[in-house]
Protein backbone atom coordinates (compact mmCIF):
# COMPACT_ATOMS: atom_id res chain seq x y z
CA UNK A 1 0.00 0.00 0.00
CA UNK A 2 1.27 3.51 -0.77
CA UNK A 3 1.85 6.04 1.99
CA UNK A 4 -0.94 8.54 2.58
CA UNK A 5 -2.01 11.30 4.93
CA UNK A 6 -5.05 10.45 6.99
CA UNK A 7 -7.72 12.98 7.97
CA UNK A 8 -10.98 12.52 9.81
CA UNK A 9 -12.92 15.76 9.33
CA UNK A 10 -15.78 16.58 11.70
CA UNK A 11 -17.82 18.71 9.28
CA UNK A 12 -18.97 18.44 5.70
CA UNK A 13 -17.28 21.74 4.79
CA UNK A 14 -13.96 20.50 6.13
CA UNK A 15 -14.37 17.18 4.29
CA UNK A 16 -15.06 18.93 1.00
CA UNK A 17 -12.06 21.16 1.34
CA UNK A 18 -9.79 18.19 2.13
CA UNK A 19 -11.43 16.21 -0.68
CA UNK A 20 -10.45 18.91 -3.15
CA UNK A 21 -6.72 18.24 -2.50
CA UNK A 22 -5.13 16.63 -5.56
CA UNK A 23 -4.79 12.87 -5.06
CA UNK A 24 -7.36 12.76 -2.26
CA UNK A 25 -9.93 9.99 -1.88
CA UNK A 26 -12.87 9.66 0.47
CA UNK A 27 -12.69 6.68 2.79
CA UNK A 28 -15.94 5.14 3.99
CA UNK A 29 -15.73 1.60 5.43
CA UNK A 30 -12.81 0.84 3.14
CA UNK A 31 -14.03 -2.60 2.09
CA UNK A 32 -13.38 -1.76 -1.55
CA UNK A 33 -10.87 1.08 -1.31
CA UNK A 34 -8.42 -0.62 1.09
CA UNK A 35 -8.57 -3.78 -1.01
CA UNK A 36 -7.65 -1.80 -4.15
CA UNK A 37 -4.93 0.08 -2.26
CA UNK A 38 -3.35 -3.20 -1.17
CA UNK A 39 -3.31 -4.27 -4.82
CA UNK A 40 -1.79 -0.95 -5.88
CA UNK A 41 -4.80 -0.24 -8.13
CA UNK A 42 -5.77 2.79 -6.02
CA UNK A 43 -2.96 5.03 -4.71
CA UNK A 44 -4.53 8.05 -2.99
CA UNK A 45 -2.05 10.43 -1.35
CA UNK A 46 -4.68 11.69 1.09
CA UNK A 47 -7.46 9.70 2.74
CA UNK A 48 -10.43 11.70 3.94
CA UNK A 49 -12.36 9.50 6.37
CA UNK A 50 -16.01 10.51 6.02
CA UNK A 51 -17.50 7.95 8.40
CA UNK A 52 -17.92 10.43 11.26
CA UNK A 53 -19.57 13.26 9.32
CA UNK A 54 -22.70 14.32 11.18
CA UNK A 55 -26.18 13.71 9.79
CA UNK A 56 -25.27 11.32 6.99
CA UNK A 57 -26.18 8.12 8.85
CA UNK A 58 -29.95 8.59 8.90
CA UNK A 59 -32.89 7.09 7.03
CA UNK A 60 -35.60 9.75 6.83
CA UNK A 61 -39.15 9.81 5.53
CA UNK A 62 -39.76 13.17 3.85
CA UNK A 63 -43.11 15.01 4.02
CA UNK A 64 -43.94 14.16 0.38
CA UNK A 65 -43.52 10.41 1.01
CA UNK A 66 -39.99 10.17 -0.41
CA UNK A 67 -37.27 8.39 1.58
CA UNK A 68 -33.79 9.78 2.03
CA UNK A 69 -30.99 7.36 2.91
CA UNK A 70 -27.78 8.99 4.16
CA UNK A 71 -24.54 7.99 2.42
CA UNK A 72 -23.02 6.66 5.67
CA UNK A 73 -25.89 4.29 6.49
CA UNK A 74 -24.39 0.83 6.76
CA UNK A 75 -25.71 -1.75 4.30
CA UNK A 76 -26.91 -4.12 7.05
CA UNK A 77 -28.72 -1.33 8.95
CA UNK A 78 -30.51 -0.36 5.75
CA UNK A 79 -31.61 -3.93 5.03
CA UNK A 80 -32.88 -4.26 8.61
CA UNK A 81 -34.81 -0.99 8.72
CA UNK A 82 -38.54 -1.62 9.23
CA UNK A 83 -39.60 1.14 6.81
CA UNK A 84 -37.26 -0.10 4.07
CA UNK A 85 -38.44 -3.71 4.53
CA UNK A 86 -42.06 -2.57 4.32
CA UNK A 87 -41.85 -0.18 1.38
CA UNK A 88 -38.87 -1.35 -0.69
CA UNK A 89 -38.54 -5.09 0.00
CA UNK A 90 -36.59 -5.76 -3.22
CA UNK A 91 -33.98 -3.24 -2.10
CA UNK A 92 -33.49 -5.10 1.18
CA UNK A 93 -33.36 -8.44 -0.62
CA UNK A 94 -30.70 -7.13 -3.01
CA UNK A 95 -28.52 -5.85 -0.17
CA UNK A 96 -28.81 -9.14 1.69
CA UNK A 97 -27.86 -11.02 -1.49
CA UNK A 98 -24.54 -9.15 -1.62
CA UNK A 99 -21.19 -9.81 0.05
CA UNK A 100 -21.27 -11.28 3.60
CA UNK A 101 -22.74 -10.25 6.96
CA UNK A 102 -19.33 -8.90 8.01
CA UNK A 103 -18.94 -6.78 4.88
CA UNK A 104 -22.53 -5.51 5.00
CA UNK A 105 -22.06 -4.48 8.64
CA UNK A 106 -19.24 -2.19 7.53
CA UNK A 107 -20.09 -1.17 3.95
CA UNK A 108 -21.85 2.16 3.45
CA UNK A 109 -24.50 3.28 0.98
CA UNK A 110 -22.10 5.75 -0.67
CA UNK A 111 -19.30 3.20 -0.90
CA UNK A 112 -21.60 0.60 -2.40
CA UNK A 113 -22.61 3.04 -5.13
CA UNK A 114 -19.00 4.05 -5.78
CA UNK A 115 -17.42 0.59 -5.68
CA UNK A 116 -15.19 -0.24 -8.64
CA UNK A 117 -15.67 -3.02 -11.17
CA UNK A 118 -14.49 -6.50 -10.17
CA UNK A 119 -12.91 -7.04 -13.62
CA UNK A 120 -9.93 -9.23 -12.78
CA UNK A 121 -7.68 -7.42 -15.27
CA UNK A 122 -8.54 -4.11 -13.62
CA UNK A 123 -7.34 -5.62 -10.33
CA UNK A 124 -4.18 -7.15 -11.81
CA UNK A 125 -1.47 -4.52 -12.08
CA UNK A 126 0.39 -6.66 -14.64
CA UNK A 127 -2.53 -6.42 -17.11
CA UNK A 128 -3.38 -3.61 -19.50
CA UNK A 129 -6.52 -1.75 -18.47
CA UNK A 130 -7.99 1.43 -19.95
CA UNK A 131 -10.10 2.02 -16.87
CA UNK A 132 -7.03 2.03 -14.60
CA UNK A 133 -4.60 3.68 -17.03
CA UNK A 134 -6.29 5.42 -19.95
CA UNK A 135 -4.87 4.41 -23.32
CA UNK A 136 -3.13 1.27 -22.02
CA UNK A 137 -5.47 -1.14 -23.82
CA UNK A 138 -7.77 -3.80 -22.41
CA UNK A 139 -6.56 -7.30 -21.61
CA UNK A 140 -10.08 -8.47 -20.77
CA UNK A 141 -10.91 -8.49 -24.48
CA UNK A 142 -10.08 -12.02 -25.55
CA UNK A 143 -9.24 -12.89 -21.91
CA UNK A 144 -10.37 -15.80 -19.79
CA UNK A 145 -13.52 -14.24 -18.36
CA UNK A 146 -16.69 -14.87 -20.34
CA UNK A 147 -18.82 -13.14 -17.71
CA UNK A 148 -18.17 -9.66 -19.06
CA UNK A 149 -20.69 -7.08 -20.24
CA UNK A 150 -23.43 -7.85 -22.76
CA UNK A 151 -24.90 -4.35 -22.96
CA UNK A 152 -23.46 -0.86 -23.35
CA UNK A 153 -19.81 -1.90 -23.64
CA UNK A 154 -17.20 -0.52 -26.01
CA UNK A 155 -13.98 -1.90 -27.42
CA UNK A 156 -12.18 0.22 -24.82
CA UNK A 157 -13.80 -1.54 -21.82
CA UNK A 158 -16.12 -4.51 -21.37
CA UNK A 159 -16.38 -4.48 -17.56
CA UNK A 160 -19.56 -4.55 -15.47
CA UNK A 161 -20.64 -2.67 -12.36
CA UNK A 162 -20.81 -5.17 -9.51
CA UNK A 163 -23.35 -3.68 -7.09
CA UNK A 164 -26.54 -5.54 -6.19
CA UNK A 165 -27.99 -2.61 -4.24
CA UNK A 166 -27.83 -0.30 -7.29
CA UNK A 167 -30.07 -2.58 -9.42
CA UNK A 168 -33.36 -2.05 -7.53
CA UNK A 169 -32.28 1.57 -6.96
CA UNK A 170 -32.22 2.02 -10.74
CA UNK A 171 -35.65 0.41 -11.05
CA UNK A 172 -37.06 2.66 -8.31
CA UNK A 173 -35.94 5.93 -9.97
CA UNK A 174 -33.55 6.73 -7.12
CA UNK A 175 -31.79 10.09 -7.12
CA UNK A 176 -28.19 10.60 -5.92
CA UNK A 177 -27.65 13.69 -3.77
CA UNK A 178 -24.18 15.17 -4.13
CA UNK A 179 -22.20 17.86 -2.30
CA UNK A 180 -19.12 19.44 -3.80
CA UNK A 181 -16.81 22.42 -3.94
CA UNK A 182 -19.25 24.05 -6.39
CA UNK A 183 -22.33 23.38 -4.26
CA UNK A 184 -25.01 20.69 -4.03
CA UNK A 185 -26.63 18.94 -6.98
CA UNK A 186 -28.43 15.71 -7.78
CA UNK A 187 -28.18 13.09 -10.51
CA UNK A 188 -30.63 10.28 -11.33
CA UNK A 189 -29.10 6.94 -10.36
CA UNK A 190 -29.54 5.65 -13.93
CA UNK A 191 -27.20 8.40 -15.16
CA UNK A 192 -24.76 8.21 -12.24
CA UNK A 193 -22.59 5.35 -13.58
CA UNK A 194 -21.13 6.04 -17.00
CA UNK A 195 -20.97 3.64 -19.91
CA UNK A 196 -17.33 3.30 -20.97
CA UNK A 197 -17.30 4.74 -24.50
CA UNK A 198 -13.69 5.74 -25.13
CA UNK A 199 -13.22 7.09 -21.57
CA UNK A 200 -13.82 4.19 -19.17
CA UNK A 201 -11.71 5.82 -16.43
CA UNK A 202 -14.44 8.45 -15.95
CA UNK A 203 -16.74 5.88 -14.39
CA UNK A 204 -19.28 8.04 -12.54
CA UNK A 205 -20.89 11.45 -12.76
CA UNK A 206 -18.91 12.69 -9.73
CA UNK A 207 -16.41 15.46 -10.39
CA UNK A 208 -13.15 15.41 -8.38
CA UNK A 209 -13.83 16.37 -4.76
CA UNK A 210 -17.56 15.68 -4.92
CA UNK A 211 -19.13 13.56 -2.19
CA UNK A 212 -22.31 11.48 -2.31
CA UNK A 213 -24.40 12.60 0.67
CA UNK A 214 -27.61 10.60 0.21
CA UNK A 215 -29.86 8.53 -2.03
CA UNK A 216 -33.47 9.59 -2.36
CA UNK A 217 -36.34 7.32 -3.34
CA UNK A 218 -39.27 9.26 -4.80
CA UNK A 219 -42.78 8.75 -3.34
CA UNK A 220 -43.87 6.46 -6.21
CA UNK A 221 -41.14 3.95 -5.31
CA UNK A 222 -43.24 2.67 -2.41
CA UNK A 223 -46.06 1.68 -4.79
CA UNK A 224 -44.54 -1.68 -5.76
CA UNK A 225 -44.08 -3.26 -2.36
CA UNK A 226 -46.52 -6.12 -2.86
CA UNK A 227 -44.94 -7.26 -6.14
CA UNK A 228 -41.22 -6.61 -5.97
CA UNK A 229 -38.38 -9.13 -6.27
CA UNK A 230 -34.65 -9.30 -6.82
CA UNK A 231 -33.01 -12.44 -8.21
CA UNK A 232 -29.30 -13.08 -8.56
CA UNK A 233 -27.45 -15.88 -10.35
CA UNK A 234 -23.92 -16.41 -9.03
CA UNK A 235 -21.30 -19.13 -9.07
CA UNK A 236 -22.16 -20.22 -5.53
CA UNK A 237 -25.27 -19.73 -3.43
CA UNK A 238 -23.90 -16.95 -1.26
CA UNK A 239 -20.94 -14.55 -0.89
CA UNK A 240 -20.34 -14.14 -4.62
CA UNK A 241 -20.90 -11.34 -7.11
CA UNK A 242 -23.70 -11.60 -9.66
CA UNK A 243 -23.23 -13.18 -13.05
CA UNK A 244 -26.63 -11.70 -13.82
CA UNK A 245 -29.24 -10.21 -11.52
CA UNK A 246 -32.71 -8.79 -12.06
CA UNK A 247 -34.96 -6.42 -10.12
CA UNK A 248 -38.60 -6.63 -11.19
CA UNK A 249 -41.56 -4.70 -9.81
CA UNK A 250 -45.19 -4.67 -10.87
CA UNK A 251 -48.44 -2.87 -10.22
CA UNK A 252 -51.47 -4.54 -11.72
CA UNK A 253 -55.25 -4.68 -11.52
CA UNK A 254 -57.76 -7.20 -12.92
CA UNK A 255 -55.01 -9.14 -14.69
CA UNK A 256 -53.65 -6.10 -16.53
CA UNK A 257 -50.28 -4.55 -15.79
CA UNK A 258 -50.52 -0.89 -14.83
CA UNK A 259 -46.82 -0.26 -14.42
CA UNK A 260 -43.65 -2.35 -14.48
CA UNK A 261 -40.09 -1.66 -13.42
CA UNK A 262 -37.18 -3.78 -14.65
CA UNK A 263 -33.44 -3.43 -14.15
CA UNK A 264 -30.49 -5.80 -14.68
CA UNK A 265 -27.22 -6.17 -12.81
CA UNK A 266 -23.94 -7.74 -13.88
CA UNK A 267 -24.57 -6.99 -17.55
CA UNK A 268 -23.13 -3.50 -18.11
CA UNK A 269 -20.94 -0.80 -16.60
CA UNK A 270 -24.07 0.59 -15.00
CA UNK A 271 -27.14 -0.94 -13.39
CA UNK A 272 -29.21 -1.42 -16.55
CA UNK A 273 -32.74 -0.03 -16.58
CA UNK A 274 -34.80 -1.81 -19.25
CA UNK A 275 -37.17 0.99 -20.27
CA UNK A 276 -38.30 -0.56 -23.59
CA UNK A 277 -39.33 -3.70 -21.76
CA UNK A 278 -41.20 -1.63 -19.17
CA UNK A 279 -43.11 0.16 -21.96
CA UNK A 280 -44.12 -3.20 -23.47
CA UNK A 281 -45.34 -4.48 -20.11
CA UNK A 282 -47.49 -1.45 -19.32
CA UNK A 283 -51.05 -2.32 -20.34
CA UNK A 284 -50.23 -5.95 -21.20
CA UNK A 285 -52.05 -8.94 -19.72
CA UNK A 286 -50.16 -10.25 -16.70
CA UNK A 287 -48.49 -13.55 -17.53
CA UNK A 288 -45.62 -15.44 -19.10
CA UNK A 289 -46.25 -14.22 -22.67
CA UNK A 290 -45.82 -10.60 -21.67
CA UNK A 291 -42.77 -11.47 -19.56
CA UNK A 292 -41.12 -13.36 -22.45
CA UNK A 293 -41.72 -10.41 -24.77
CA UNK A 294 -40.30 -8.05 -22.16
CA UNK A 295 -37.17 -10.18 -21.80
CA UNK A 296 -36.62 -10.18 -25.57
CA UNK A 297 -37.03 -6.40 -25.66
CA UNK A 298 -34.67 -5.87 -22.75
CA UNK A 299 -31.96 -7.88 -24.51
CA UNK A 300 -32.61 -6.81 -28.10
CA UNK A 301 -29.28 -4.99 -28.24
CA UNK A 302 -27.32 -7.50 -26.16
CA UNK A 303 -24.06 -8.71 -27.68
CA UNK A 304 -21.51 -10.87 -25.88
CA UNK A 305 -18.32 -8.92 -25.29
CA UNK A 306 -16.14 -11.93 -24.79
CA UNK A 307 -17.72 -15.15 -26.00
CA UNK A 308 -20.37 -14.78 -23.31
CA UNK A 309 -23.45 -15.90 -25.31
CA UNK A 310 -24.55 -17.97 -22.33
CA UNK A 311 -24.96 -14.83 -20.29
CA UNK A 312 -27.59 -13.46 -22.68
CA UNK A 313 -29.69 -16.61 -22.33
CA UNK A 314 -29.16 -16.55 -18.56
CA UNK A 315 -30.37 -12.95 -18.45
CA UNK A 316 -33.41 -13.77 -20.61
CA UNK A 317 -34.47 -16.61 -18.33
CA UNK A 318 -33.80 -14.68 -15.14
CA UNK A 319 -35.93 -11.73 -16.34
CA UNK A 320 -38.88 -14.06 -16.98
CA UNK A 321 -38.34 -15.85 -13.69
CA UNK A 322 -38.11 -12.66 -11.65
CA UNK A 323 -41.21 -11.16 -13.27
CA UNK A 324 -43.10 -14.40 -12.51
CA UNK A 325 -41.98 -14.23 -8.89
CA UNK A 326 -42.89 -10.55 -8.61
CA UNK A 327 -46.34 -11.30 -10.02
CA UNK A 328 -46.78 -14.09 -7.47
CA UNK A 329 -46.11 -11.61 -4.69
CA UNK A 330 -43.40 -10.33 -2.37
CA UNK A 331 -42.61 -12.86 0.38
CA UNK A 332 -43.82 -11.83 3.83
CA UNK A 333 -40.24 -12.22 5.08
CA UNK A 334 -36.94 -12.01 3.21
CA UNK A 335 -36.20 -15.60 2.12
CA UNK A 336 -33.54 -17.59 3.98
CA UNK A 337 -31.43 -17.50 0.81
CA UNK A 338 -32.05 -13.94 -0.41
CA UNK A 339 -32.48 -13.57 -4.18
CA UNK A 340 -31.50 -17.17 -4.80
CA UNK A 341 -33.18 -19.01 -7.67
CA UNK A 342 -32.41 -22.18 -5.70
CA UNK A 343 -34.42 -21.16 -2.64
CA UNK A 344 -37.31 -23.38 -1.59
CA UNK A 345 -40.77 -22.01 -2.33
CA UNK A 346 -41.78 -19.49 0.27
CA UNK A 347 -44.42 -20.17 2.87
CA UNK A 348 -46.30 -16.92 2.46
CA UNK A 349 -46.35 -14.43 -0.39
CA UNK A 350 -48.42 -11.77 1.30
CA UNK A 351 -46.30 -8.77 2.02
CA UNK A 352 -47.97 -6.15 4.18
Amino acid at each position, binding site marked *: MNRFDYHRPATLAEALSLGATPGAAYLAAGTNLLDLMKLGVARPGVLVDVTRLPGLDRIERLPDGATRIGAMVRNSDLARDAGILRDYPALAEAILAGASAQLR*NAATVGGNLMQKTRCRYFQDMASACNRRSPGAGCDAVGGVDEGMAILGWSDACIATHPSDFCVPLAALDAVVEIAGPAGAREVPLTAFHHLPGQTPAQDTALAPGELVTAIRLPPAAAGFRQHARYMKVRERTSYAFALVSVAAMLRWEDGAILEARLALGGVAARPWRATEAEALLAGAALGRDAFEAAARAALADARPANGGEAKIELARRLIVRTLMLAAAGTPARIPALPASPFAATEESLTHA
Partner: protein
Amino acid sequence: MTYPLTLTINGTAQSLRLDDPRVTLLDLLRERLHLTGAKKGCDRGQCGACTVLVDGRRVNACLTLALSVDGAAVTTVEGLARGETLHPVQTAFIEHDAFQCGFCTPGQIVSAVGLIAEGEAGTDPERIREGMSGNICRCGAYHGIVEAVLAAQAARAAEERKTA
Protein backbone atom coordinates in the same frame (compact mmCIF):
# COMPACT_ATOMS: atom_id res chain seq x y z
CA MET B 1 4.07 12.32 12.56
CA THR B 2 2.27 9.86 14.79
CA TYR B 3 -1.45 9.23 15.03
CA PRO B 4 -3.13 8.77 18.42
CA LEU B 5 -5.63 5.93 18.68
CA THR B 6 -7.77 4.79 21.59
CA LEU B 7 -9.39 1.38 21.55
CA THR B 8 -11.01 -0.81 24.16
CA ILE B 9 -9.69 -4.23 23.32
CA ASN B 10 -11.33 -7.21 25.01
CA GLY B 11 -12.49 -4.91 27.79
CA THR B 12 -9.21 -3.07 28.38
CA ALA B 13 -8.85 0.56 27.29
CA GLN B 14 -5.63 1.12 25.35
CA SER B 15 -4.07 4.40 24.25
CA LEU B 16 -1.90 3.76 21.26
CA ARG B 17 0.24 5.78 18.86
CA LEU B 18 0.60 4.68 15.28
CA ASP B 19 3.68 5.75 13.35
CA ASP B 20 2.00 4.70 10.11
CA PRO B 21 -1.64 5.34 9.10
CA ARG B 22 -1.69 2.28 6.83
CA VAL B 23 -2.09 -0.23 9.66
CA THR B 24 -5.25 -2.30 9.38
CA LEU B 25 -7.11 -3.39 12.49
CA LEU B 26 -5.95 -6.94 11.78
CA ASP B 27 -2.27 -6.00 11.61
CA LEU B 28 -2.63 -3.87 14.72
CA LEU B 29 -4.08 -6.79 16.66
CA ARG B 30 -1.70 -9.43 15.37
CA GLU B 31 1.61 -7.65 14.82
CA ARG B 32 1.55 -4.92 17.44
CA LEU B 33 -0.70 -6.19 20.23
CA HIS B 34 0.21 -9.86 19.73
CA LEU B 35 -3.40 -11.00 19.70
CA THR B 36 -2.99 -13.65 17.03
CA GLY B 37 -6.43 -15.21 17.39
CA ALA B 38 -7.86 -13.34 14.40
CA LYS B 39 -6.17 -14.89 11.38
CA LYS B 40 -4.98 -13.44 8.10
CA GLY B 41 -6.39 -15.76 5.47
CA CYS B 42 -6.84 -13.67 2.34
CA ASP B 43 -6.37 -10.09 3.59
CA ARG B 44 -9.10 -9.13 1.07
CA GLY B 45 -12.46 -9.66 2.76
CA GLN B 46 -12.97 -12.99 1.04
CA CYS B 47 -12.60 -15.57 3.81
CA GLY B 48 -13.73 -14.24 7.22
CA ALA B 49 -10.73 -15.63 9.15
CA CYS B 50 -10.06 -12.11 10.49
CA THR B 51 -13.59 -11.58 11.87
CA VAL B 52 -13.74 -9.47 15.06
CA LEU B 53 -16.51 -7.51 16.75
CA VAL B 54 -16.31 -3.73 16.52
CA ASP B 55 -18.82 -2.17 18.91
CA GLY B 56 -20.56 -5.53 18.97
CA ARG B 57 -20.83 -5.94 15.18
CA ARG B 58 -18.86 -8.54 13.25
CA VAL B 59 -16.56 -7.09 10.60
CA ASN B 60 -13.47 -8.11 8.61
CA ALA B 61 -10.47 -6.66 10.46
CA CYS B 62 -8.33 -6.98 7.31
CA LEU B 63 -10.39 -4.35 5.48
CA THR B 64 -10.75 -2.00 8.45
CA LEU B 65 -8.28 0.83 8.81
CA ALA B 66 -7.31 0.90 12.50
CA LEU B 67 -7.45 4.72 12.69
CA SER B 68 -10.94 4.70 11.27
CA VAL B 69 -12.37 2.85 14.30
CA ASP B 70 -10.72 5.15 16.85
CA GLY B 71 -12.73 5.03 20.09
CA ALA B 72 -14.38 1.67 19.38
CA ALA B 73 -14.66 -1.44 21.52
CA VAL B 74 -13.03 -4.42 19.79
CA THR B 75 -13.63 -8.03 20.78
CA THR B 76 -11.45 -10.82 19.44
CA VAL B 77 -11.66 -14.54 20.10
CA GLU B 78 -9.24 -14.03 23.00
CA GLY B 79 -11.85 -11.89 24.74
CA LEU B 80 -14.72 -14.37 24.73
CA ALA B 81 -13.88 -16.73 27.60
CA ARG B 82 -14.36 -15.69 31.24
CA GLY B 83 -11.20 -16.89 32.90
CA GLU B 84 -11.13 -20.67 32.51
CA THR B 85 -14.79 -20.77 31.45
CA LEU B 86 -15.22 -20.91 27.72
CA HIS B 87 -17.88 -18.87 25.94
CA PRO B 88 -20.93 -21.03 25.12
CA VAL B 89 -20.14 -20.76 21.40
CA GLN B 90 -16.60 -22.03 22.04
CA THR B 91 -17.97 -24.96 24.05
CA ALA B 92 -20.47 -25.73 21.30
CA PHE B 93 -17.71 -25.76 18.65
CA ILE B 94 -15.80 -28.36 20.67
CA GLU B 95 -18.88 -30.46 21.38
CA HIS B 96 -19.98 -30.50 17.76
CA ASP B 97 -16.61 -31.11 16.10
CA ALA B 98 -16.95 -27.80 14.30
CA PHE B 99 -13.36 -27.65 13.08
CA GLN B 100 -10.50 -29.68 11.76
CA CYS B 101 -7.27 -27.71 11.25
CA GLY B 102 -8.66 -24.79 13.26
CA PHE B 103 -7.39 -21.98 11.05
CA CYS B 104 -10.83 -20.56 10.30
CA THR B 105 -12.16 -21.30 13.79
CA PRO B 106 -11.50 -18.00 15.63
CA GLY B 107 -13.24 -16.16 12.79
CA GLN B 108 -16.09 -18.68 12.75
CA ILE B 109 -16.62 -18.40 16.50
CA VAL B 110 -16.57 -14.61 16.58
CA SER B 111 -18.84 -14.53 13.54
CA ALA B 112 -21.26 -16.93 15.27
CA VAL B 113 -21.29 -14.69 18.36
CA GLY B 114 -22.15 -11.77 16.07
CA LEU B 115 -24.83 -13.76 14.27
CA ILE B 116 -26.50 -14.81 17.52
CA ALA B 117 -26.46 -11.21 18.76
CA GLU B 118 -28.12 -10.08 15.52
CA GLY B 119 -30.93 -12.44 16.46
CA GLU B 120 -32.25 -12.97 12.93
CA ALA B 121 -31.32 -16.52 12.00
CA GLY B 122 -33.29 -18.30 14.74
CA THR B 123 -33.20 -22.09 14.54
CA ASP B 124 -33.44 -22.31 10.75
CA PRO B 125 -30.28 -24.12 9.55
CA GLU B 126 -30.63 -22.45 6.13
CA ARG B 127 -30.60 -18.98 7.71
CA ILE B 128 -27.62 -19.95 9.85
CA ARG B 129 -25.71 -21.24 6.81
CA GLU B 130 -26.49 -18.05 4.91
CA GLY B 131 -25.63 -15.87 7.92
CA MET B 132 -22.29 -17.68 8.30
CA SER B 133 -21.42 -17.62 4.57
CA GLY B 134 -18.82 -14.91 5.14
CA ASN B 135 -16.63 -17.49 6.88
CA ILE B 136 -14.98 -19.97 4.58
CA CYS B 137 -13.73 -23.29 5.99
CA ARG B 138 -11.28 -25.05 3.71
CA CYS B 139 -11.56 -28.21 5.80
CA GLY B 140 -15.27 -28.24 5.10
CA ALA B 141 -16.39 -28.45 8.73
CA TYR B 142 -19.61 -26.67 7.81
CA HIS B 143 -21.91 -29.38 9.11
CA GLY B 144 -20.46 -29.18 12.61
CA ILE B 145 -20.37 -25.39 12.48
CA VAL B 146 -24.12 -25.16 11.81
CA GLU B 147 -24.80 -27.73 14.55
CA ALA B 148 -22.64 -25.75 16.98
CA VAL B 149 -24.40 -22.47 16.21
CA LEU B 150 -27.80 -24.15 16.63
CA ALA B 151 -26.72 -25.61 19.97
CA ALA B 152 -25.31 -22.28 21.18
CA GLN B 153 -28.54 -20.50 20.20
CA ALA B 154 -30.59 -23.13 22.06
CA ALA B 155 -28.36 -22.86 25.15
CA ARG B 156 -28.72 -19.10 25.12
CA ALA B 157 -32.51 -19.29 24.74
CA ALA B 158 -32.67 -21.72 27.69
CA GLU B 159 -30.47 -19.39 29.74
CA GLU B 160 -32.75 -16.46 28.92
CA ARG B 161 -35.83 -18.44 30.00
CA LYS B 162 -34.13 -19.21 33.32
CA THR B 163 -33.26 -15.58 34.04
CA ALA B 164 -36.62 -14.23 32.80
